[in-house]
């Protein structure tokens, strides 16, 4: 009899808890393979840490209910054609309630078309290109500072150190890098720099010797550009092995990854515009502090978080808060809550534009600059060097 009572009790308890703790499905694709692999997996780790913490805390509490988070994801092979097929599947077959973006601008832009066609909220992270937000969407929200801002800080910093520098732009011919470099080129000229050389290289380029020979011939003294991890790390290696006489090298995205240290001497001195660094201490109004996040992340993955990881985690936080504010997972209400969002988390300020011609564009968040330096023991570490207010070390200039 006792047993029966116990069994009934357990069943009822199960029923009650499952009744209260509903499950929300968040869908996205990950580049488990292909050129975006390294960055994309770091972003995934950010997502996963957020999910695990939410579920451990009993789910998102909104409108008197608890919502646990469940992920559905597929490998997009870093291929934008797959992305559309898979996001359609996530929406239609897997009935995802909310979506996160894949990693990288072109993949995100293609996914955005599908999510917008089916009117699903998608938070984009790991995608800084801004053109997508001018196409007239309503359900897209960008976590990253748009590309146009990426290299402005570097040029401002260079202006203080070496106003006579001859600048070379060598960048991937991808929507993200182009969206970064075009405004940067204009800004460099506006600041009075000599833009000595500028050339885009095809995505998946592995042999940079022709371009490097041209950089040398142009007598450039600083190099700005890059694209993503695969091409950026290759470019840095070859710049190093060809002993190009440069005083500064700034590359997009790639040097932010903890894997960058594996390049050894080729890694030293390289600067990366970053969405976030563990050293930047924002006062979080919502969610964990930067230190807590970094500690939890390192505890789970045995490596410090990159800004892709931080972006992934912050993406979850912002969605969580919007669901709480909306009082449930209703798409229109959550979208409205996101439109009204203006908060500071460990990741910095987040605010989305609500103007019709750039809806969802990130307008609150700001960049920092990090440089790979050797510490006293000779180990490679990434230090924040700009803005000066947030710096953790002085800029090394020139590199050699």
């Amino acid at each position: 009899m006792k047993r029966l009572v116990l069994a009934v009790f357990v069943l009822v308890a199960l029923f009650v808890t499952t009744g209260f703790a509903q499950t929300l499905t968040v869908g996205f694709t990950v580049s488990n393979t292909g050129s975006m692999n390294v960055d994309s997996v770091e972003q995934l780790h950010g997502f996963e840490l957020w999910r695990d913490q939410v579920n451990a805390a009993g789910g998102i509490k909104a409108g008197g209910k608890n919502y646990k988070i469940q992920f559905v994801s597929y490998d997009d092979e870093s291929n934008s054609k797959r992305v559309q097929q898979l996001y359609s599947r996530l929406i239609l077959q897997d009935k995802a309630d909310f979506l996160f973006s894949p990693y990288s601008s072109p993949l995100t832009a293609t996914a955005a078309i599908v999510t917008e066609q089916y009117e699903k909220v998608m938070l984009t992270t790991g995608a800084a290109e801004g053109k997508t937000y001018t196409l007239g969407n309503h359900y897209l929200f960008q976590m990253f500072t748009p590309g146009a801002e990426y290299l402005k800080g570097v040029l401002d910093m260079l202006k203080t150190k070496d106003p006579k520098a001859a600048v070379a732009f060598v960048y991937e011919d991808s929507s993200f890098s182009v969206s970064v470099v075009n405004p940067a080129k204009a800004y460099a000229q506006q600041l009075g720099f000599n833009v000595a050389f500028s050339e885009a290289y095809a995505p998946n380029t592995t042999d940079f010797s022709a371009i490097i020979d041209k950089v040398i011939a142009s007598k450039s003294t600083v190099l700005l550009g890059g694209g993503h991890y695969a091409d950026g790390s290759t470019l840095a290696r070859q710049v190093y092995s060809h002993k190009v006489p440069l005083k500064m090298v700034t590359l997009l995205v790639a040097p932010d990854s903890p894997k960058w240290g594996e390049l050894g001497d080729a890694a030293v001195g390289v600067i990366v515009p970053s969405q976030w660094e563990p050293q930047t201490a924002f006062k979080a109004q919502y969610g964990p502090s930067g230190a807590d996040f970094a500690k939890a992340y390192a505890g789970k993955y045995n490596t410090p978080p990159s800004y892709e990881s931080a972006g992934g985690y912050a993406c979850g936080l912002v969605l969580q808060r919007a669901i709480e504010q909306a009082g449930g997972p209703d798409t229109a209400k959550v979208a409205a809550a996101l439109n009204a969002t203006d908060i500071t988390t460990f990741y910095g300020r987040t605010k989305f534009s609500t103007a019709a011609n750039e809806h969802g564009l990130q307008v609150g968040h700001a960049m920092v600059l990090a440089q790979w330096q050797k510490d006293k023991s000779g180990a490679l570490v990434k230090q924040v060097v700009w803005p000066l207010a947030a710096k953790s070390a002085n800029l090394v200039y020139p590199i050699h």
Partner: protein
Amino acid sequence: MSGILASMIDGLLIGSVYGLAAMGLSLIWGVMDVINLTHGAVIALGMFGMYILFAAFPVNAYLLLLPVIAAGLLLGLLIYWIAVHWVIGRSQLSSLLSTFAVNMMIIGIGTAIWSTSPYNVNFTLRGITVGAYTFDGNHLAAAGAAVIIGLALELFLYRTRPGKAIRAVADNREAAELMGISSTMVLALAFAIGIALAASSGALVSTLFPFTILSGAGYQMKSFVVTVLAGLGKPLGALVAGVLLGLLEGAVTPFIAVSWIPLIEFGLFVVVLVAFPKGIFARATA
């Protein structure tokens, strides 16, 4: 030193690796009239072969070419028996598709093992600096190795019995059979050597650039261009044409954006193919 000269030297160095890759394609095409579409996949396997060997035995990477070549020969025999032997004598479409099928399988298995993420062979030789320009030590070594392997093949074809048998079969398969040469053995051998050449060129590339399992495709395309420029069944011609292609790339890049190179190369390829279907260098003897 001027930028153009430096660029041309860089082109020449990488061109010899293109040439080595093309030698394998050219040999198989010329001897057995099979366009080997496993070429790119085998080049990629050569890259990963070097990666695995270097991880196990971190000696001078160029010494590891020897085991890569040996493994390439075995792989070549295997592919020959799986996909080529049965379609010899059938239409060219059959061998085109059967080798392509093997290509898909290799890429598929490779993707399952290594995903399509980039890998590196962390081996660096000291470069040579001339003025502002430094020529990468690995590029110099790889070019040297490519030329040595190419010349070794030429010696093999002209100075040894099996080499002469290969040339005889390439010339006239029926006549060679009448003279008591087993064409099956010779075809299998030629195919194996072609595959070994492709694998060795992949191994050389792996010491220069990062690579993925898909990287072979680009070198396969270059091999087509080089083979067509050189004319079929002329392995040494392929080596020379590869070097010339590299030189051409080096000579034009100072003046135009690098992104135009494929258009020039493949445009040239199509035009040459249409104008001289037997190859530019083959015209004199045709």
